[in-house]
């Protein structure tokens, strides 16, 4: 226990990287996911086919393999990325595939009459999407998005294998130094849990705000 407190600063730095990776990849994942969902729903056969292929490949392969391809595979072609950059890229690509399915479902859940009403008022399809469909889809997408988000928070632990010193790797480094495992693992488990609870809380707030009208 004392060891944990002595090294708490070090663990906090690890937690900071975990949070950073989660938030950055969630941010880019959101953008990728939205683009993929729109490509599948509104794109021509080529765009929608590409989006479908992307989702199929990313969801059908282990995230660890994706991380290795980005970090260890790309240098073969002269693209060498830092561990943190590789983590951002691989997790964004991964989360984008999952979120695109969430968004697609959410967009499809908005009744057709909403589109018709917007178009009869003269809105273009883009304006309809932005003003009418997406705000309503967001409300539907929040709960499953929360799942993905919290799942991602924990999956960041996988990037410890490419030497990003996030929370898990911080603990492993300390364990290697002191030859005691349990206190550090318990400590980071608690820290993961606290972060999850914190995110759940924020997502709940957002959900309540979007549900105000209903």
């Amino acid at each position, binding site marked *: 226990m004392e060891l944990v407190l002595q090294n708490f600063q070090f663990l906090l730095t690890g937690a900071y990287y975990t949070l950073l990776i989660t938030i950055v990849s969630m941010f880019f994942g959101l953008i990728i996911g939205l683009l993929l969902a729109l490509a599948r729903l509104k794109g021509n056969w080529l765009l929608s086919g590409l989006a479908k292929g992307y989702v199929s490949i990313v969801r059908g392969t282990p995230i660890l393999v994706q991380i290795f391809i980005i970090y260890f595979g790309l240098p073969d072609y002269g693209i060498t990325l830092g561990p943190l950059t590789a983590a951002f890229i691989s997790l964004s690509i991964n989360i984008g595939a999952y979120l695109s399915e969430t968004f697609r479902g959410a967009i499809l859940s908005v*009744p057709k*009459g*909403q589109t*018709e*009403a*917007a*178009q*009869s*008022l*003269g*809105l*273009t399809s883009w*304006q309809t999407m932005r*003003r*009418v469909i997406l*705000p*309503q889809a967001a*409300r539907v997408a929040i709960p499953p998005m929360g799942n993905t988000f919290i799942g991602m928070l924990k999956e960041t632990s996988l990037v410890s294998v490419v030497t990003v010193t996030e929370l898990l790797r911080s603990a492993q480094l300390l364990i290697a130094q002191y030859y005691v495992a349990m206190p550090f693992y318990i400590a980071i488990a608690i820290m993961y849990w606290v972060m999850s609870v914190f995110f759940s809380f924020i997502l709940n707030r957002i959900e309540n705000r*979007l549900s*105000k*009208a*209903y």
Partner: protein
Amino acid sequence: MFMIEVKQLGKSFGDLVVFRDIHLHIHPREIVVLVGPSGSGKSTLLRCLNGLEEPDAGSVVIGDASWDFSMDVSSKKQAIRKIRTSTGMVFQSFNLFPHMTVLENVIMAPTIVKKMSRTEAVEIGEALLAKVGLLNKRDEYPSRLSGGQQQRVAIARALAMQPEIMLFDEPTSALDPELTGEVLAVMKQLAEEGMTMIVVTHEMKFAREVANRVIFMSDGVIQEESTPEQFFKQPKTERARKFLRQIEGVPDIEYQV
């Protein structure tokens, strides 16, 4: 000079012919009520007029915008956009935007499509809400309103774009009977103010009192058109007589339980 001129309009869904060879001429300020049994194609015809369904034959001229089946894709799209700016549509299921307040519902299209300033749009929006008797609900969300109130907001929303023609697609069919009156009253007021209107409805009382012309559609064709007096007293076709008997509540056949 006609406000709406429809020629040889046709629409099918796959093998199902919804209607064919429809000709329709509507004068400015005219109130035309479209009646007929369900499945007769009247709603689809109305939806074809502002491009919610795409006809597969014929032409539509509304105001100074014209749509023709033979046009290429981009001119069609442009024509539909132009037609939509001069027509307002009211739906059976209201289709208010649930995530916006009543006032936001009304002012959204003017600010987005017409780039009107918010102040101006709010002014117009409030005037329209006052007109449909719902100014006190301006900051409520649609889910807090009754069906009749929602439909009145939907009318105000369509009017906010200052259309020359209003299309009503069974505006009272989703309402409880005691709520239809308030919607019909607003429509009647619009008619008196000189709006050109096409109304698909089962409200025969409204047709009788407000319409200038009744068009009876059945099996995808216009079976007859005449003044309401003539249509209700002396329908020309047997189909219309049968339809009227049914709608007046006189059963055609005996039921047995």
